């Protein structure tokens, strides 16, 4: 009787662990709700928003993602194909929610307009360009 109960507990724990692992490992892109995916950046292509986004990036993001946004210490590049192909809504969702199990924190404490300014800056970055390219922004 005791052995049976132990097996059941082990099975339940394994199931929970598997579900948690799958949830943690799945790409953040697959979690974005359709309504969020369609959102549009109200600050898109505005030079002053890009300039503000650059300052916000330097203040909050550069230490992890590198001052050239190409990633450092194993953290991802923000000039990658994946980021380039993500919609503005998807990036906004990621900034708001983070990807906690992958180490990306939620930036919901930054006001939403500042998060859009950051996205406007990210969108202005050249894809996989040389680090010096950032200096022109």
């Amino acid at each position: 009787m005791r052995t049976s109960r132990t097996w059941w507990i082990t099975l339940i724990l394994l199931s929970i662990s598997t579900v948690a692992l799958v949830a943690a490992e799945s790409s953040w892109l697959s979690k974005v709700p359709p309504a969020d995916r369609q959102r549009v950046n109200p600050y898109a292509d505005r030079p002053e928003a890009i300039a503000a986004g650059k300052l916000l990036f330097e203040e909050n993001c550069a230490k992890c993602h590198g001052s050239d946004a190409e990633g450092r210490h194993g953290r991802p590049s923000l000039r990658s194909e994946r980021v380039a192909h993500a919609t503005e809504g998807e990036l906004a969702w990621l900034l708001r929610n983070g990807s906690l199990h992958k180490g990306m924190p939620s930036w919901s404490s930054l006001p939403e307009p500042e998060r859009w300014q950051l996205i406007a800056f990210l969108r202005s970055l050249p894809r996989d360009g040389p680090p010096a390219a950032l200096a022109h922004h």
Partner: protein
Amino acid sequence: MAQSPQHLFELQATQKPGRRHKNGSSGPHFHRLLAQFSLCRALALLFLVSLCAAPHTTARAQEPPYFVTYSEALEEPGNLEVAQKGTTGSPKDANAFYSATLELEYGAKAWWTTELYLQGQATANDSTIFTGFRWENRFRVLPTEHAINPVLYIEYEDVNGADKSVLEVTGHDGIANFQGRNAAGRGDISRTMEGKLILSSNPKGWNISENWILEKNMMGGAWEFGYAVGASRPFALAAASRACTFCRQNFSAGAEVYGGLATVHDFGFQDTSQYAGPTAYFNIPHGPTLGFSPQFGLSDNSAGVLWRLTISYEIQQFRDLFSKKEAQ
């Protein structure tokens, strides 16, 4: 920090022979001095760490300007925040005091922040003493943002009866906590487990946070309750397009209300202390965050006014200082 030989000589010279303990040990006077130096060391360490960390520091990212209330904001993983939280006041029938708390907050994971507090206080016409330490952990419960975001908080406290930091109010904490002599309070050690349910929302640029506190002294006594509620907003929601120190987005203000809710035997506001006051933070870009708040006692069992000050530095990606991974 090691004291210079000259400094140690001066310390010994200040000890009056008549106050030395009979058995040749330095006695209570020496212990008091030792405690003073522990506090001095802690403060000196704060400034040393701050200076060493200067090239890595930056203001915190829009952390709500609360002194007692916790929001959902956790430390970013790998970052270390070093803060000094000060509380001063001159309560009724008690000497004026200044309580200093050194806070070391580390982002262990994106969903877990751990924090160590070292505390001390100086009271006029009394002494300066180290009052204890606290170790707290905060865990984000849900993986994504919701209208209300819960965070679980668990803390172990080892503080003595002379503690005047008022980092939270629970049970029947009140003005009597400020009125005792340090010598009497320092021997009254309490080891306490504290839990909080932190609920936090961010509607339209505002932050609204509620904390529900449950505390149990492991050395005896009833379960105690408390609460804290805060609301705040940055002065501007969008950032300026040029680098500036005094831009509106670097300032935030709000208000908080907190107090005790007595114990499991007499739950309510009877014989509890309650405080409320405005709060303000100034995030200096690539520099420290400064905070200030006057907090007013709302009940007979409260101190009249507590003045709170804080200065904090965030050392971004502190763990990279020990990492050998190459940049990718």
